[in-house]
């Protein structure tokens, strides 16, 4: 049960964040931070199917995380889900075609090791 929830969280978070990044890149860079234009930009973002799907995935991940906290300690939950950092970096490289150089790999690995340590 514990590991099923971990797999759900990692899978849903990864799908959600990849979809959100893809959706926001399709929308294009937000330049205008005045309230009116910013509100209109978010109105368009809300109708973006990739962003809408990402919110759904993140909701699944959120509730699975709450369920995990009921059956496991936080010191198990946080390290187990830190796997998303590595998985998302790999998938962003291949699916979103981001250029991940040595520094980014090193940074992602350092963070993926650091997060479990902090949660202990």
């Amino acid at each position, binding site marked *: 049960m514990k590991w099923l929830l971990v797999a759900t969280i990692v899978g849903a978070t990864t799908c959600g*964040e*990849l979809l*959100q*990044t893809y959706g*926001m*890149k*399709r*929308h*294009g*860079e*937000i330049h205008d931070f005045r309230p009116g234009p910013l509100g209109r930009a*978010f109105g*368009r*973002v809300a109708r973006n199917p990739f*962003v809408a799907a990402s919110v759904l995935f993140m909701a699944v991940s959120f509730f699975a995380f709450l369920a995990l906290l009921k059956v496991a300690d936080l010191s198990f939950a946080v390290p187990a889900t830190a796997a998303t*950092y590595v998985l*998302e*970096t790999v998938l*962003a*490289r291949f699916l*979103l*075609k*981001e*250029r*991940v*150089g040595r*520094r*980014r790999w*090193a*940074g*992602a*690995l*350092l*963070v993926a*090791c*650091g*997060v*479990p*340590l*902090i*949660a*202990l």
Partner: protein
Amino acid sequence: MTASSPRLRFKTRLLAAIVICSNVLGNFSLSRGMRSGGAGNPFLAAVLNPWVALGVSLLILWMLSRMTLLSWADLTYVLPVTAFGYVLTALMGRLFLGEHVSPGRWTGIALIVAGVVLVGNTPIRTTRPGERRSA
């Protein structure tokens, strides 16, 4: 690979700071509100609690600011950089709640800070912008 202009760097750092702070303070308020639950229906008590309301508002701000940041920055840039929130949470726990920070935790903090510094100096965007810009 295009170099990031100073203006883009400034905008990115400012937004990353908003993303990090809204997440840390939002979780902090939410956990404070959830712990101070009184008698009666726990769901209703949570909804009516001002700390919970503040936490939820901050987490909405977190979500929107993160989406804005992702409208130009790489996911592989945003993810490690915003992990600095874990460090801030640990330090807030030590400063404001008097929590003990073990050597293992300090090691984790050091690893994350090193990761953030490494990634923070890479180009913010490595994909081509504006392939499909809606008017």
